[in-house]
């Protein structure tokens, strides 16, 4: 499903090229729950951003569903983010002022789904994450755990092929961490491919496969 061959990523800083990913080779199959662990600054998030079409790679090959997506235009990348990828952030990144329902329905809005359909789908997802009673609450009034569940619902709303989670429990207490991880586990059991970045070793027990990263390299 996902294949990376000799992927490099460099950032230019003060006139110098700073390598972040060095010849990353990676293959993730359908239905895997893959945890990527490593110390801060080892390139986990950069890798996730490239996988999620949020960033471009400097060189190498990136194939998604057998399609070479190494060089995509902004519009094509947005299309992938819209239809193929669900993203869960450590800091939730919900839009304050909007209700939980509106936040979850937002990706469908940009995809051109009719209001009635996107509202129904968003409600369905919020019910799945146990927030059916709080669909009309503004997200800023929800607890951290609830906000992350809204974010998970948003990531799933467009029925993506893969969910990318960047430290999804980083800002949560133990109780909410378990709730969120159980949710991800349930989603995985339904057949969804999940790629999760974390530095919490304990979370790797939920994963079917663990990848370790060090200085821009993947060590299986």
């Amino acid at each position, binding site marked *: 499903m996902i294949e990376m061959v000799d992927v490099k990523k460099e950032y230019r800083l003060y006139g110098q090229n700073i390598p972040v990913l060095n010849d990353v080779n990676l293959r993730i199959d359908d239905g895997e729950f893959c945890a990527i662990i490593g110390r801060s600054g080892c390139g986990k998030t950069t890798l996730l951003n490239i996988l999620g079409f949020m960033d471009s790679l400097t060189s190498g090959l990136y194939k998604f569903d057998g399609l070479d997506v190494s060089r995509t235009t902004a519009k094509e990348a*947005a299309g992938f*983010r819209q239809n193929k990828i669900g*993203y869960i952030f450590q800091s939730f*990144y919900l*839009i304050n002022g909007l209700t939980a329902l509106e936040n979850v329905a937002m990706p469908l809005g940009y995809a051109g789904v009719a209001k009635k359909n996107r509202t129904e789908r968003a409600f369905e997802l919020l019910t799945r994450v146990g927030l059916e009673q709080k669909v009309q609450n503004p997200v800023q009034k929800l607890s951290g755990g609830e906000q992350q569940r809204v974010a998970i619902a948003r990531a799933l709303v*467009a029925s993506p092929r893969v969910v990318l989670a960047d430290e999804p429990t980083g800002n949560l207490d133990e109780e909410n961490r378990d709730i969120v991880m159980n949710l991800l586990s349930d989603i995985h059991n339904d057949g969804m491919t999940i790629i999760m970045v974390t530095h919490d070793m304990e979370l790797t027990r939920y994963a079917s496969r663990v990848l370790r990263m060090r200085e821009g390299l993947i060590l299986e």
Partner: protein
Amino acid sequence: MRYSLERAFFNYTQNLKKTYWVIVQLIVGCAVIACCLNYSISSGERYLELLSQIEPNQYRIDAYVKNINADNDYPAIRYSDYIELSALIEDADLSYIAYGATLTEEPFYLVFADSCHYTKLGLTNTDSIYVGKSVARFCGDEPCFLTTFCKLENDSIVLDNAAFSWKAFPAETEEKIVVEDLHSGNTLLTERSILIPAHLINQAMETSEEMLGTGLAFKIPDDTDMTRIKEIKERICSFLSDRHGDFEFAASGEQTSEIQSRMNDMKINYDSFLWISVFLMIIVALGTIGNALIILLKRKRSLAISLAVGATPRQLFLEFLSEVFLTIQTGVLLGLAVSAFITPQLSNTFCVVKNHVLTWLIVIAGGTLTTLLVSAVSYLLFRTEPSRTIHGI
């Protein structure tokens, strides 16, 4: 696209509390700009009007009744008076006359100086005008019906001397006329307005013995000696006083050079207010662009999130463009509304300042141009990769 517009409207209403000061600045800015433009355009119009009045080497003398008021009877300067006066003052051309005619039971004032001006209005025999008696009564000491220059503009007859705006109606219309005193800003409704079919006016002109005049206008060569001009004025006044002892008459005149001097004033007004408007437009536009970009940067978080969940840069661009357009046009339209109230107050004795559609178009177009500039700059911001945007917040 539809969702982008939906979001833009949502953001617009949600952020009104944050953007109200931008709107207030725009209201003030656009109101001032619109007033300046109105003043400039009105001065330009007045300039052209004065230009049309200039007849080379002609000096005009207006003779009129000084002490007319609501309680007086109306003076009855007859056509024969003006024939005699013409003969008396050989070097003057009695070509303008302000008529008051008795075509009905009630006396009323015909605002046109003569058939020449009547023709200028472009009325045909099937047209009619309403002329109200009470208009003359509201004029105070000045005999406002002594109007020697008038023109048709947007269906309104703008009377130069009296600065009244009268409306031309199609024949058989029975609406009452609303007379606007452009100097004082008062709006007067004539209660006993009379419908005068144009063919009756023409008929009255031909059977001039029936016409009652309230004033006369002479034209004499511009280079006539001032002593002679003074003599003519005195002669006219004494002649009319002899004939109509109940009234006092006065005469005033204006040389071409004097009209040209007024034209220069108008030109200066036109130029200076136009440049002030342009300068203010640039300042307001720059201020608005700055403010809009501040708003954009403050909202970078939500924009980055939208990008991350699949919005295309084009969708976000459209969203922001629509939001900025709504915000700017709110300020622009409210500013124009404010200027519509202020503009009439700017009228003075030299120039009647009116609201102009051209002003509205210029200010609205300026607002639209500003929106496009804001959007052009913001478009560059949206070109960044979402990861950098989202991790930069």
